[in-house]
């Protein structure tokens, strides 16, 4: 989760997180945290593995937390905050990666390939249907985002696919 950590003076710590420099140290009943010229003196009680009670200048925030391999999730007063964990191989996870003159179509969710409309080597025009993926009984069309040629096809009709698998690659 952290980019890196370093010990500051007086037992303080510094963390670079989402390009912010965050300084913090523990106090008798919680944490003192500083970033962006703001300072937080937070009374913290851990309720269970997923729940914290924070009190900051009288204001109470019950925070629910959970994490999986990709993200840490927090629920605060109805809001969901998702912080991606950085991995060595990639930056943030992206659903449909477009670089200049290239479209890599990844499966937007785990599902089943209903129909592939293109063949390798075929020319496509922006807006053409490329594939239909089905999940939870609903169909989702994926369209070409640029004029180009189909370079790779890694699936066929009826395949079950995982999220983020590259299905089709189109180059200008």
């Amino acid at each position, binding site marked *: 989760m952290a980019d890196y950590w370093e010990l500051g003076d007086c037992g303080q710590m510094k963390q670079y997180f989402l390009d912010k420099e965050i300084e913090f140290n523990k106090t008798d009943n919680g944490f003192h945290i500083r970033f962006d010229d703001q300072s937080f003196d937070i009374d913290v009680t851990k309720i269970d593995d997923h729940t914290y009670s924070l009190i900051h200048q009288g204001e109470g925030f019950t925070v629910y937390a959970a994490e999986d391999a990709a993200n840490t999730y927090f629920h*605060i007063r109805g809001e969901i905050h998702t912080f991606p964990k950085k991995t060595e191989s990639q930056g943030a996870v992206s659903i449909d990666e477009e670089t200049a003159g290239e479209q890599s179509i990844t499966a937007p969710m785990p599902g089943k390939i209903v129909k592939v409309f293109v063949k390798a080597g075929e020319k496509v025009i922006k807006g053409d249907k490329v594939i239909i993926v089905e999940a*939870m*009984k609903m169909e989702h069309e994926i369209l070409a985002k640029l004029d180009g040629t189909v370079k790779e096809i890694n699936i066929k009709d009826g395949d079950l696919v995982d999220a983020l698998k590259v299905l089709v690659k189109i180059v200008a």
Partner: protein
Amino acid sequence: MFHKILIANRGEIAVRVINACREMGIKTVAVYSDADRASLHVLKADEAYHIGPPSPLESYLNQNKIIEVCKRACVDAVHPGYGFLSENTRFAGLLKQNNITFIGPNPTAIELMGDKIGSRKIMEKALVPLVPGMTSKSESLTEIAAFAEKIGFPVLIKASAGGGGKGMKIVEKAENLKDAVESAQREALKAFGDDTVYVEKLLLEPRHIEFQILGDKHGNYHHLFERECSIQRRYQKVIEETPSTALTPELRNKMGEVAVQAARSVAYDSVGTVEFLLDKDGSFYFLEMNTRIQVEHPITEMVTGVDLVKTQILIAAGEKLNLDGVTQKGHAIECRVYAEDPANNFLPSSGKILFMKEPAGLGVRNDCGVYSGATVTVHYDPILSKLVVWGEDREAARKKMLTALDDYVVLGIKTSIPFLRDCLKHDAFIKGRTYTDFIPKNMGARVVQNKHHDKALCAAVIHAHAPKQAGVKQDQVLTPWQTIGNWEIAGR
């Protein structure tokens, strides 16, 4: 009364039926696919039997297998829930052959109404107003195209066996017709095992108003008022409420009478729903009749105090309806909580629910099919739960729903909760301007506004460095950190 009921379904509706049975002293039997061994309906039932692989066709739609379990477990009735086999007359027939009661209407009523084209004909005869559309089956694209041309675009493709938005497609112009029909046919085949589709004229800015109707086996018919379900996305209902802000007492009575007439015309003998489109000028058109318990039945229960699932079971057991004097009281709203990502074109979101906390309290009800730690698979409907509230009036209900949505914690998968909250906060909703284009018109340029980003950053720091063990000792001034030995200095 029945001794033991098999619930031929899964998810929240199976749990809902199991709870009703338990309160009636009826034993319950769950069935489950390989993907559902750990699902909530299995945990709730008195008995549970495996019926096959995850694919619905091989499990929840596998009629022979389900009949086999019925016999093995000696059940005297089957509740089909909604979807799956709930409107399947062949299944109802198979049960009858085995002397098992199908908890639903007689097969003729299902057949007449389940066939959306045929039901239009019956309504035409009963002088119920209809949206212009096809009243004959057609398997040829040419015929469909010719009819569409006749009533004029935009048109709507609908599955004859359909419901719940599956197999429905809007077609704006003639050249898109072919693809839309094919896609609708594929969806319809998969969802209902029947790929017949038909075409209807598309009304502009209508409201979707439906009436809860009930009939028994003794010729008694009632309606329990309306539900407004105008807020839809791709023909899937998202938010429902009752009463509708659009009905005067007179219009309510009139529509209710037509709904009862529709039920009577097919000798309807269970709970069911007659759907109408209501135009801005107050004219209304029969849309279709659903011959099953409806997803959104809870809001009717909240304002009338009638338990529709219990009533459905009682009717199936031959009891007489007694609903005289039932009135609408207060206001109820239902929000459907789907496993989908509203920030990314509502793509379905599957995976493990890492943590979940359901809202509760006075007037709050969450009909839920999952739990904290459950895995949401890709095989079935993305509905996680139906959050339902009751308030003394519409504004009280709306505020209660907003509070409940704030209290509804789901981490790990994406849900429609943030989207639902934005809908309820929209001025058009507050003012009751709810037409079927509410979502495309008002929610298109929705931007997520998180106010507590600073606190979230603090929480991230705290979460990374909090002690592993929770809890504080009684009688002790709280110094939770005294137990921390050393912190993790490296990234994790």
